[in-house]
């Protein structure tokens, strides 16, 4: 009984968290290079819609996803042109995209599908990936190792002893045996199997992405450049880094992630575009990014936490038959909880969140 509830909760956590995590990481990459991306909500909407359009006309969800990504890239290019090259106000631009997407996708929905409710079903990824118990076992090892890596690198940063090699060695020494031990523990295996069976490919993408981004930002020279541009563009410029190339790349990537996040809702979880999408998920992603202190692994942790609050409603409903006192918690409080927590985090009550120093400031070459 309890295992069943746990599996159901984890399953919906993964579903709920995937778009938020992907979009949040889009925010991370953009803001680390010093460009605020408030447009995530709008870009998720656009990406989600065009993915459905692509899948509808080609009958192939992969081509749909490609169209969504293409749309995201084009929008990202436009955003970079206006906010990076022409130093337009990034916040105002984000607001504009959100409003435009709201009306624009409704208009296109009517144009393409002659409705303002939701599109007809298209071929999608929503049936999910059926996994084998062996795969679940491997996944469990991956999850434990990944978690260990996150904890190790966090605590090493905390002790100001960040060292890539030591982190990897420690992870291998602690995480691998732990993961393998866990993978022979039947209940854990069953829970992982239950939670991941028939999840969409986006879930796997979302699980790998934070680690990829973490590697990119903190272990490669490009990551160093991105962070340099976000913290002190003038110094970076002096050292011969092309600010514009870095920011263009990051903004476009950010919009592409936003579009993938949108597609993970429309042709991932479902097989339609609903006119209410993404229903504020872009803003939760923004909150997660801040709560995660503009860091990929931090964002992962924040999303895990937010999704817990998000599915807590379902969980509480499931448990309220056994524990009636839980039923008295109003849904509104559960909904608002992640945001309250973010606000507290921002205020410095739950760990201080400091954005990259040059976040939101347009850069002009040769400026004094």
């Amino acid at each position, binding site marked *: 009984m309890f295992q069943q509830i746990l599996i159901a909760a984890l399953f919906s956590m993964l579903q709920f968290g995937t778009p938020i995590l992907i979009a949040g990481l889009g925010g991370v990459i953009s803001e680390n290079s010093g460009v605020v991306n408030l447009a995530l909500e709008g870009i998720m909407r656009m990406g989600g819609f065009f993915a459905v359009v692509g899948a509808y006309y080609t009958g192939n969800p992969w081509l749909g996803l490609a169209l969504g990504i293409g749309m995201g890239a084009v929008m990202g290019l436009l955003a970079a042109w*206006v906010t990076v090259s022409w130093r*337009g106000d990034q916040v105002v631009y984000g607001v504009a995209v959100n409003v*435009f997407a*709201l*009306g624009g996708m409704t208009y296109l929905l009517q144009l393409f599908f002659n409705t303002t409710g939701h599109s007809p079903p298209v071929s999608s990824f929503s049936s999910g990936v059926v996994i084998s118990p062996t795969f679940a076992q491997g996944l469990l090892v991956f999850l434990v190792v990944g978690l260990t890596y996150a904890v190790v690198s966090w605590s090493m940063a905390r002790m100001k002893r960040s060292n890539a090699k030591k982190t990897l060695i420690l992870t291998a020494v602690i995480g691998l045996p732990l993961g393998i031990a866990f993978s022979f523990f039947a209940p854990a295996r069953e829970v992982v199997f239950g939670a991941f069976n028939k999840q969409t490919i986006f879930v796997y993408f979302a699980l790998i992405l934070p680690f990829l981004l973490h590697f990119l930002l903190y272990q490669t020279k490009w990551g160093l450049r991105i962070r340099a541009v976000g913290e002190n563009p003038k110094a970076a410029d002096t050292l011969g880094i092309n600010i514009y190339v870095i920011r263009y790349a990051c903004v476009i990537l950010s919009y592409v992630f936003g579009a993938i996040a949108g597609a993970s809702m429309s042709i991932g979880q479902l097989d339609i575009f609903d006119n209410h999408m993404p229903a504020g998920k872009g803003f939760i992603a923004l909150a997660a990014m801040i709560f995660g202190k503009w860091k990929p692994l931090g964002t992962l942790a924040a999303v895990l936490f937010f999704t817990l609050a998000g599915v807590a409603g379902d969980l509480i409903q499931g448990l309220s038959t056994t524990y009636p006192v839980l039923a008295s918690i109003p849904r*509104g*409080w559960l*909904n608002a909880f992640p945001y309250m927590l*973010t606000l507290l985090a921002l205020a410095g009550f739950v760990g201080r969140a400091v954005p990259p120093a040059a976040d939101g400031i347009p850069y002009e070459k040769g400026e004094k």
Partner: protein
Amino acid sequence: MSRPKARFSYSNLLDLLVPIVSILLGLIVGMILIAVAGKNPLGAYGAMFSGAFGSINSISEVIIKTAILTFTGLSVAFAYKVGLFNIGAEGQFIIGAITAAFLGHWIHLPGILHIPVIMVASFIMGGLWAAIAGWLKVTRGVHEVISTIMLNWIAVYLVENWLVTGPLSAVKATGSSDAGTPIIDGSAMLWRFIAYPPDQAGRIGLLVVIFLVAAIVAHYILNRSPIAKATNLILSLVVGAGVAALSSIAIFQWQYGIPGDRANIGIFFAMAAVAITFILLYRTVTGYEIRATGFNQEAARYAGINIKQRTILTMFIAGGLSGLAGMLMICGTERRFPGVFPGGYGFDGIAMALIGQNSPIGTFLASVLFGIIRGGATSMQLPPYEIHKTFADIIQGSVVLFIAANNIIRYLLMFPFKRKGEVD
């Protein structure tokens, strides 16, 4: 009072041209989208603008939308003056609305007191909600864009998913099965242009207020131009009388109003708010200090202005203005906090302030324009155009997009003059 004459320059003209060109370009983007769909863009726009003035009912909707947009727009514009970007107008709007819905039903006062009490309460509650962001900004260095976004969602969820469906729901209060909060008392309802309640003394009082406000606004505006004091006085009295005369037509025809017509005196409140914020910002010491803080914080600090206190105060007033927008929606239009809340006015307020270049009068003009566009957009839903009313969002979004890209527009407008270098 003698002021240095504003030096005319093309650069000054550009400040005025940028929003106008942005609006035109936004409208053109909309036309292109309509044309792409194989429909007649001019015909559709014709339907939209004539639809906005096609019937008493639609004019009434335009007036309602203009009034609410003006308040949320002023809220954003006001905060901008101290250098803060108030994305949280939506949350403050919702907080003001639920305050009005609560006080409208749960306290009982005579008509002459009920509305003022609700107005003050909605102002304070919306103001406090925004002041949280101001306080976080000055004491904790939290960027107001992020904190107000969070406050928005907290307000949305706590009000819509808890208060309205729980403790304050009509089901709990009166046992009716209606969604939303119970209907507010008659004394809490703003007078619509159909008579309610039949109160002649109130109408005459209102006319006097309108006269005074219009005269004072005209006086202050004329005061900026180099004309004699006596002429100024006479002119402002004339303007005040004219405005009062025009509004008296509306006021005394209320009893002949057409049912279904929801327009109410909120529009006068909105005009008064424009005048008051204008005077507060440009004709008082506090306003000067607020603008000085927004212009150059360090210089303002050096001049002895209490930056922290001014910032929190500005956010409080800005939030209060949004709170009043919520009050207008509840007491004027909806008369309850409905189960499905027609929100979005707070977010639209951002666009109004940006398009109005953050000036009270510009914001009002933008609100009138988008009141018309939003009111008329419903007419495009009919055949032969069948364009959903959210088309207004497309226009609004593209206009703001062009405002964000104002450097490009400035560059293009400067092009004929072939000036090199900076365009400021």
